[in-house]
């Protein structure tokens, strides 16, 4: 096979001109490395978000509705007080709704003797536990009786428990939250930091009735978590919730919602959007460096053709056709580009792994960037190799051996 022989000559050509070969690979290497890192970060972010959503106890059949207009966790107005237990009752009465958990929330200082820390204190109903599916590893969660009697009991996440009790057993101990004393009756299972650094264990839970009347002293809610009976009905349920809340809050048809939904899809979309700007930037960089890499290959090949004009001439004298010379140099540029791609992929792999290892950015290594790298470097090699290759082939044999 003539084409295979030309491929062999191309390989040998690259081998003999190692310095040029190395220089030619550089641009492609950088381009492909950044491409690999971009894709890895993209994948990593996606899986981080999915993880985070899972950690938040969001299944596909659940969502939360937060008080105040805005988007996701960013309320535009912190003083909205329109969400009440009436809303909770009305949502609970809707068809297709399995669990409804009303929530109040405040960051507060919790104190055990001289040790203290600040944590998120939630006032919730006992359904919180089945809705979140979060185990209590020691003691127990508060029940309906605790709710009814507005007992001053508290369930601690691992982070605040560890901070104020150290190695001691917190169960049965009294701690002070703000000015009110609570008895620790349970400890939540440790979830551990998410990849983004969010600490789900940094929380404390008290009965909603207690928080309303004894601690926060407010009747309006921070948010309501809703679990539907099945995931297909979520959209419909959300529409129903919207109607109930707008009616209960007395909003005119022209007024904006004074509440906002937090759904797994919503979070996903938000994260995707905010990562997109960065990704576009990086994609631009990698495209530019691939183009620059291609131009570098083209220029070095053009120079190398001048250096190797005798070689081309001799090959032509002994029977190489124009097509053979074109093939040889095109193979050289494609091979060099693929080599750069392989080096870039490896470099990208190392970079992505380090980003991940040192917790700088979430990165997840998948096969896609390697397939992309192969395709891109092949294309770059072809596009930027064709001009030098044809130029080499067009040299007339009698002039090249003078």
């Amino acid at each position: 096979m003539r084409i295979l022989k030309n491929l062999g000559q191309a390989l040998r050509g690259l081998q003999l001109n190692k310095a040029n070969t190395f220089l030619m690979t550089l641009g492609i290497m950088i381009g492909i490395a950044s491409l690999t890192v971009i894709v890895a970060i993209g994948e990593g972010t996606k899986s981080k978000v999915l993880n985070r959503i899972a950690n938040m106890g969001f299944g596909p059949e659940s969502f939360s509705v937060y008080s105040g207009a805005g988007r996701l966790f960013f309320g535009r107005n912190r003083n909205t007080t329109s969400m009440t237990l009436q809303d909770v009752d009305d949502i609970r009465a809707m068809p297709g709704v399995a669990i409804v958990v009303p929530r109040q929330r405040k960051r507060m200082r919790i104190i055990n003797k001289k040790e203290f820390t600040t944590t998120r204190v939630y006032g919730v109903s006992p359904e919180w536990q089945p809705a979140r599916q979060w185990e209590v590893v020691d003691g127990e969660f508060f029940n309906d009786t605790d709710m009814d009697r507005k007992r001053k009991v508290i369930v601690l996440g691992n982070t605040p428990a560890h901070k104020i009790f150290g190695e001691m057993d917190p169960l049965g101990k009294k701690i002070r939250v703000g000015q009110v004393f609570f008895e620790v009756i349970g400890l939540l299972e440790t979830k551990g930091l998410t990849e983004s650094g969010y600490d789900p264990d940094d929380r404390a839970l008290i009965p909603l009735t207690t928080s309303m009347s004894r601690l926060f002293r407010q009747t309006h809610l921070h948010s309501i978590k809703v679990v539907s009976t099945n995931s297909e009905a979520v959209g419909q349920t959300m529409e129903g919730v919207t109607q109930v809340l707008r009616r209960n809050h007395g909003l005119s048809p022209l007024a904006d919602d004074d509440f906002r939904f937090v759904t797994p899809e919503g979070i996903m979309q938000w994260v995707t959007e905010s990562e997109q700007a960065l990704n576009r930037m990086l994609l631009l960089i990698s495209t530019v460096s691939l183009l620059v890499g291609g131009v570098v290959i083209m220029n070095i090949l053009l120079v190398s053709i001048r250096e190797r004009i005798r070689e081309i001439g001799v090959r032509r004298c002994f029977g190489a056709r124009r097509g053979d010379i074109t093939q040889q140099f095109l193979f050289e540029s494609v091979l060099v580009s693929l080599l750069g791609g392989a080096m870039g992929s490896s470099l990208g792999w190392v970079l992505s792994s380090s980003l991940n290892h040192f917790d700088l950015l979430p990165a997840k290594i998948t096969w896609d960037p390697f397939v992309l790298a192969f395709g891109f470097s092949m294309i770059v090699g072809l596009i930027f190799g064709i001009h030098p290759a044809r130029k080499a082939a067009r040299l007339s044999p009698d002039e090249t051996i003078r």
Partner: protein
Amino acid sequence: MKISKVIEIDSIIKTYKNEGFETNVLKGISISIGEGDYVSVIGPSGSGKSTLMTILGCLSQATSGTYLLDGEEVGKLRDSELSRIRNEKIGFVFQAFHLLPGVSAFDNVMMPLIYCNKTPADAKERVKQVLIRVGLEHRMAHTPGQLSGGEQQRVTIARSLINNPKIILADEPTGNLDSKNGAEIMSAFDHLNAEGRTIIIITHNPIVSEHARRILTLRDGQIVSDEINENFKESRAGIARAAVK
């Protein structure tokens, strides 16, 4: 003795156009060269020797005139056809060797076989044989940089022989060699001719041209003399003596 013609050129004219100026390098040259002939082409620089060689070697085509190589009209062939003819019928030996740098003697000799339409099955054996013939069997793995000038030129002779060509075209084959190595190379040509190869040597060195049976003198793009070399037998006798020693 009637010998068949390998090369027959008739009224070859070669004109180069350069920035509007036309230069007539060859002004109507007709030669016929028989099989097994040993021809040297001499003439001062600028006389058109090299241009004649590029035309004889099918590296360029004449502006007008006809060129029959081994009975085939090559004047109007396409580039890829010319490549095939160079591959099959012509073996080149250059003044500056023009070996592929960094590539072993063996692979350098192998190179023309890459461009055959069908690489012979015994390619490696053939390469070995021609390298043995030029006395380089112990240097096959050496690259040009590791070989002396004389050895490099012997590699190029081996390379020119690998496809068993109709003619061997040598352009100043001793130009880059000292006289001892030059003499060795010329005796190699003498031996090849003695075996029946057609050899054309382009040179301006009278010592080299004296080896040929026939000497063509070129001046200003025309052949001014075409004579049988009186000293031919004597030089052959010299080789015979050298061989005996």
